[in-house]
């Protein structure tokens, strides 16, 4: 039997000492991206697994989101004295986006822990596990966007092609940020097992201090309070263009800065601790 029988690919050489830890961390990220077939397949698989025995599948989420938007819209619209035609589209896109943020934060924390059997059995880039979890949450997000589309049609909100393109660019910014947040949280939570509950309570706090249910204008003179909340900016770059407004330059600036600083820090941590992740499990 000769080696020619096997398809030799470049990935078939594994050497722990041929490159620096930074280069290996970088390779991990690239390899993870390159194997998109696998993570997209696994992401879909997770969704199918979760909803296999239900008739509506992931549309259950759409349904519960619809109920939530309708009831919260009525109550808070009345409380804040806002027109429904104005408030409902705002709430629908805000809640859907927030749900996405909350779920990638939560599941980012447990992604390595949940995938322990896989990590301990096969050598797969660590970033691939993150991409898988991010992808399945993006699919759920897409199901929830449907509510916004329906509400937008009912109230005649049309963001225009530019608006949609701007919102997609905003989504790109959110995803880039999601990547480092999940990777960093995943590492920290694998090493320190008491962190996931802390993150869960932080998410709850964030929900109340981020303008999802209430409009930023309501803060009046104290709007500056939101400048420090990066999640406000990350939601705004998606929400504003879809509502026919232009996101402020500061939304993009903070989002980009957050991404750059976050990735720089996360990459340093990842380069240092990437190979310890399997040991921590």
């Amino acid at each position, binding site marked *: *039997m000769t*080696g020619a*029988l*096997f398809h*030799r*690919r470049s*990935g*078939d*050489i*594994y*050497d*722990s*000492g*041929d490159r620096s830890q930074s280069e290996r961390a970088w390779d991990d990220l690239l390899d993870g991206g390159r*194997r998109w077939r*696998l993570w997209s*397949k*696994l992401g879909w*698989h997770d969704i*199918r*697994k979760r909803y*296999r*025995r239900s008739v509506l599948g992931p549309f259950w989420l759409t349904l519960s989101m619809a109920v939530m938007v309708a009831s919260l819209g009525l109550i808070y619209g009345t409380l804040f004295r806002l027109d429904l035609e104005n408030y409902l589209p705002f709430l629908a896109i805000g809640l859907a986006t927030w749900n996405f943020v909350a779920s990638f934060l939560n599941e980012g924390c447990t992604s390595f822990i949940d995938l322990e*059997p*896989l*990590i*301990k*059995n*096969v*050598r*797969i880039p660590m970033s691939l596990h993150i991409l898988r979890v991010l992808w399945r949450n993006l699919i759920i997000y897409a199901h929830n966007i449907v509510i916004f589309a329906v509400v937008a049609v009912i109230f005649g909100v049309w963001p225009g092609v530019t608006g949609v393109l701007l919102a997609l660019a905003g989504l790109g910014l959110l995803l880039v940020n999601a990547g480092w947040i999940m990777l960093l949280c995943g590492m920290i939570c694998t*090493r320190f097992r008491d962190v996931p509950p802390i993150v869960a309570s932080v998410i709850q706090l964030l929900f109340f201090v981020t303008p999802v249910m209430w409009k930023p204008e309501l803060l009046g003179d104290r709007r500056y309070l939101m400048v420090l909340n990066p999640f406000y900016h990350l939601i705004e770059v998606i929400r504003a263009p879809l509502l026919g407004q232009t996101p402020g330059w500061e939304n993009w600036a903070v989002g980009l800065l957050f991404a750059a600083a976050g990735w720089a820090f996360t990459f340093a941590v990842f380069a240092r601790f990437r*190979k310890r992740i*399997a*040991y*921590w499990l």
Partner: protein
Amino acid sequence: MASIHLNDVSVDFVLYQGSARSLKKTLLRSSTSGVLKHDAHHRVTVKALSNFSLGLEHGDRVGLVGGNGAGKTTLLRVLAGVYEPTAGRIRVEGRVTPLFDLGLGLDMDASGYDNIRMRAAYFGIDADEVERKMDDIAAFTELGDYLNLPVRTYSAGMTLRLAFAAATSVDPEILLMDEWLAVSDKKFLEKAQRRAESFVNRSSIMVIASHVEDVLRRLCNKILWLERGTVLRFGPVDDVLDEYNARTGNDAPLR
């Protein structure tokens, strides 16, 4: 040509859980043979492999023996690239198929066919290759139309057949196995053994950890005897196994 080179490899586990002091006491009293030490931060570490060097080439069929905690599983995971050594260097050329857990990635709610595809995807095998082999795998499981049903509906024996067929369907270049694939069903056993042996024979290098001497003698041409994370003996099967049996007082080997 496939090859494996380990150069001065060490693997240290830091023990994080519980109070280090009491844990140390607990562990020192136990019968495991890992080496406990304190590192620079006064944490308790277990040296699972220490200054380990090894070279394997095409045709090597290595059986790992040694007591509990000698480092067999750690060594296999280092070879699989799961644990990157804390010191030293490992270089592996060739496609590695780690077969540590027969049920890896088995999804009880997915159909048998889907499970076979998933498993192949984990090992980086293209979808086309799996589809080409699907008939052969299906025939081997003898599960027929059951393959369209969720694995949840299978009996334990049927699940085992599926897992076994899926696991052995790949062309392994470097094959790593922890314990021999346990197969219960008598009729299936003979068939499984033949398949397992042809699976092993297709590989270029094989490393297997097993306590069953019969398996080691039949499949291996070298034995690596580990103790406290280092190589105690590495050589021909009969020599090392005889010495191992003499040392461990295992004079009535399992046949």
